[in-house]
């Protein structure tokens, strides 16, 4: 059943609709405060949103397989604290090694979630609700509740995400690279397509010879790896590591996915949707102070947007989406 009306097409092609809304918002904010749409300021806003974009793209893979990863924010805090303490202990380590180390720690934390989901068979929401507080608690244990401040970190540790290349920060370039890599992964690799199949119809996936649990495990590892990397980038960008780093950030990540049209029921979604959802939230965050609205409104606005987005999703999911294995309808 194809919805042929223009509005229906717009709604079912979520990315275009979202892109149009973002452009409209940019024009609106630019009308009120012209300096907001200058290239320099936009680059800054993009830099501010980069971490959310990467996390949303990785979270999308998890959600595609009918799971959810609520532990990403705690993963950021724990990995960030680990690399910060590592940096204090071994100040000579090059930033690139630290980056790889953070990805490694992130994968371990993600794999732990994944193993509990795959081999033990606990629902992912329970696992990640649990590890969310466990990982956060570990940050306290390894740091003793102390902060690692900017002056304790080495210059090369701090420099990596801030360095600029072609007017964009390295952090922004990393976000673009991760987004492109995940796009290629979901679109052109067998594993990526299998992930869609797992979420679209797990039973059919099993009969097509796809190990559902294994692909869920893989997505948790990817989500963990990206979260771990973001842990280093976060701590380095804000130049401080403490227990409450990124508290409740997982909700923004899930919100970005929901706004980007990723179905929480699995199997539907695109990387562009997740990235645009994140950009949308980032735009709200950066534009609110500019147009003179108190930042206290931000939480309520993103909540309202999530609720509206899921309501719209519930309509558009009935008319398609990217499905590898379709559910049989009678």
């Amino acid at each position, binding site marked *: 059943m194809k919805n042929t009306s223009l509005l229906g097409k717009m709604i079912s092609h979520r990315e275009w609709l979202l892109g149009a809304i973002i452009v409209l918002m940019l024009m609106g904010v630019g009308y009120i405060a012209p300096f907001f749409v200058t290239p320099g300021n936009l680059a800054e806003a993009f830099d501010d949103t980069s971490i959310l974009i990467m996390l949303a793209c990785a979270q999308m893979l998890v959600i595609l397989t009918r799971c*959810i990863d609520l532990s990403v924010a705690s993963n950021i805090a724990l990995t960030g604290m680990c690399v910060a303490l590592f940096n204090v202990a071994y100040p000579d380590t090059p930033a690139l090694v630290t980056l790889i180390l953070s990805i490694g720690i992130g994968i371990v934390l993600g794999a732990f979630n994944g193993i*509990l989901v795959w081999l*033990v*068979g*606990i*629902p992912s*929401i*329970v*696992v990640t*609700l*649990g*590890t*969310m*507080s*466990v990982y*956060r*608690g*570990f940050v*306290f*244990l390894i740091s003793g*509740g102390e902060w690692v401040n900017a002056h304790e970190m080495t210059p090369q540790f701090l420099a990596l995400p801030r360095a600029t290349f072609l007017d964009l920060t390295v952090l922004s370039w990393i976000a673009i690279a991760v987004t492109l890599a995940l796009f290629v992964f979901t679109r052109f690799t067998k594993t990526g397509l299998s992930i869609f199949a797992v979420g679209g119809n797990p039973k059919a996936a099993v009969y097509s010879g796809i190990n559902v649990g294994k692909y869920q495990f893989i997505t948790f590892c990817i989500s963990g790896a990206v979260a771990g990397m973001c842990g280093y980038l976060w701590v380095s960008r804000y130049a401080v590591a403490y*227990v409450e780093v990124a508290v409740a950030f997982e*909700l923004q990540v*899930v*919100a970005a996915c*929901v706004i980007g049209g990723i179905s*929480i*029921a699995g199997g539907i979604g695109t990387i562009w949707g997740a990235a645009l959802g994140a950009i949308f939230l980032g735009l709200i965050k950066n534009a609110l102070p500019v147009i003179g609205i*108190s930042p*206290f*409104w*931000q*939480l*309520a*606005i*993103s*909540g*309202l947007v*999530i*609720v509206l987005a*899921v*309501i719209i*999703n*519930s*309509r558009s999911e009935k008319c398609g989406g990217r499905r590898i294995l379709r559910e049989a309808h009678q």
Partner: protein
Amino acid sequence: MMNEEVLKHPMTKDIKDLPDNLNGDWRNKLMRWETLLMVFVAIAFFTNTQISPYFLDPWSLSDATFNFTEKAIIALPMALLIIARDIDLSVASTIALASVAMGFANTMGAGPIELALIGMAVGTVAGFINGWIITRFDIPAIVVTIGTMSLYRGIAYIVLGDDVYRSYPSDFAFFGQGYVWGVLSFEFLLFLCLAVVFGILLHKTTFGRRVYAIGNNPTAALFSGINVKRHRLFLFTLVGLFAGIAAVLLTSRIGSTRPSIAMGWELEVITMVVLGGVNILGGAGSIVGVFIAVFLMGLVTFGMGLMNVPGIVMSIFTGCLLILVIGTPIIWRRFLNARKMRSNSGE
């Protein structure tokens, strides 16, 4: 159907060996989840008496109940909701919203009773909105309540910012701080009464049976003439009302309102429910189990408090507990199945 699910619990024997009601063999009664929880409660209680000589003092026991009573009150309807295959992550935000509403009404000069009614009404409306969106548009409860979790707390932040509401009327303090008889606080008595009401509601009424039916198989429940949507809507509204009640008690107890009030409580409430043996996938669980689990968590956190363990370290414990409590029965069941298959193939 419902008994089947309950009896499938790993601590019981094979389903075929059991009568189809729970009043059967005493051994089966002994091997239930609730019994195991009771053993843990006894261990926790004994450990606490060893840790601190002050633990057994009636007043200190009474003080200990304050830490979990409000959460426990939300856990009761939450158990019903989870048994019916739904979940509400917005309860803590609902508390914040209701508390801010009470604070605002207080500045307008509302009396203690009006304040309590306003808190409960706001909670009920918040729960109804959750339920209405979920049932009207057929969206998974988890996404909608993640959304309203931000929305409700967000509204609290819009109203209050980084400000604080104080100076509640002195009579209002009774709800959270008052004692009814000796060391028995009003809060705790309310929880005990509500636990009895919910035990009867879930285990002795048609409504309770329907909740199990919806949780086990919503489609079959619909075909057997249960208005599934209306029951779900009612359950969400009920959870909202109880979050409102918890807001009244909490606000009255601490005597002030900040938008960050009750942050992270949704996790603790859900942990209590799941620890009580309620299946997170719906269809099974009992109020007795939740009731015991509430005391287990209360005793353990109080014990750790006696040992000066910081709250964030306790959250490691809560998280591990949640995973272990759900993971162990699954592994145990798999182990039993593997053994059964081996013995079957041996015959």
